[in-house]
């Protein structure tokens, strides 16, 4: 696809967006506790 080798395509079109999704999900789960604490403070 797009004239690039499979592995290059995997890195650009799958791995790269996955990193962003992972950072979004991590942010939402990792700080739940802090958020609750800050609200109740």
């Amino acid at each position, binding site marked *: 696809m797009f004239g690039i080798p499979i592995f*290059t395509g995997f*890195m650009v079109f799958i791995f790269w967006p996955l*990193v*962003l999704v*992972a*950072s979004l999900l*991590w942010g939402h789960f*990792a700080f739940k506790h802090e958020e609750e604490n800050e609200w109740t403070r």
Partner: protein
Amino acid sequence: MDKMIILIIGILYLIVILVIGIWSSRKQKDMSTFYIGGRSFGPWLVALAISSTTMSGYGFVGLPAIAYENGYIIIMLGIFATAGIFVSFLVLAKPLRKISEKFGSLTISDLLETRYNSKAVRVVTALAILGGAIGYQMAQYKALGNMLQTVLGVRYEVALFIGVAILTVYVVAGGMISAVWTDFIQMIIMVAGSLIVFFGGLRLVGGFSQMNRELTQINPDLTQAFHTNGGSMTIFIFLSYFLLYMIGQQAQPHVVTKFYMIRKLSMLKWAAFIAALTYGLTVLLWFSGPFTRILVERGEMAAPASADLVVPTFITTYFHPVIAGLLFAAVMAAIMSTSEAFLLLASSSVVRDIYQQVIKKGKELPPKKELSLSRWVTLATVALTFLLSLNPPDLVGWLGNASWGLFVASLLPAVSIGIWWKRATRQAALVSTILGFSLSLILYILKVKGIYTPQLDTGAIAFIISTLSFVIVSYLTKNEKSELFSHEDPRIQADKLVIENKQ
């Protein structure tokens, strides 16, 4: 006329940045605001400060130049660095922010002194940071000189002098508050500029698929994630980039000190995503390397005199002067935002970690004296780096890569492993820092001189050895309690009590 318009827009941009610098310097009261902005910033400011500091002149000018010569392997580096931003949040964001609040750490060396209870660790890491900062700064200055040289049409040395003079005025005036505010604006300009270059370039070469077809025709290695047809960037370099940029991102002291600055821990929730996304978007500018390569091969564009002139030549040749002016501002932004972080880093290493600890034997300096001393040290660092940059030994990209590797090899074990691993000892921190620093420097010099070129990147070799030495020495030496682990999280303590009561 075209160059005039580019220049006017560039100057307007610099004036805006200077005004912000001066405005924010009025808010600056003490060292805490000078270095970490008084822990008062929200997620957007911190995230964009992290991504704009990571994306430097080395990234904006140096890496497209290497992509011009080597193709997609450099885009892989960008992908790993995007992932590296996330990994550094994962490993360091929470503990660093908490430690900074609890122990008042302002710099990485402050943190390491608390962790290992050792002034020696503090001084040694500060020296490593200073050495790396000067190398990295040279890459920024060369990029700045190359950029202004193209736009102003003057000699490299003159261009370098003008650029460095402007840069220095507002870093010395403003400190970190101005750096964070200007980082924020600069990153927005950088993202916009990268998108314009990427989509504009795609139109020029006839689309993504067409670009890849032509690159493969020129050399099949150019579209490979690593070279398999005789090119020099083999799978070993690919793996080196994984180690240095995805794992090693967290050892970049100019980036991680930004974790200290956030107002509330929960604000980090969005910061990782915003930082990774904005950084990833700016990586698109690196495609200007492959674009230029194709246009040169087609005979539509003259080959740039030096690979480091790829971005400035591409921008000034193909974009409307107004757009070119904005793009020029974006590249300047990349250079300035990283340079200012490095200047602050160098001055904090010298003043807080070396002068105050070694010469003043740990005695606190009056805040005003510390502030003025920091400014003088910043000026001295600028002068030294300026002289070194007049005749740099290598392309911007390789200089930046070597300094990045130097930070990873000398700091990552002591900082990232040390924060999480209670068994780590001060002797291990000292050995790994000294070994990582000297090895990465020696191997890089051997490579530049053409004496020895290893298959792995020189920084990656030094990093592997320094990590192994850190683990081995930790097991061989006596473990001591660290303040850092002395107070457990109250939630864990509460859980333990519940378990004990049940028993």
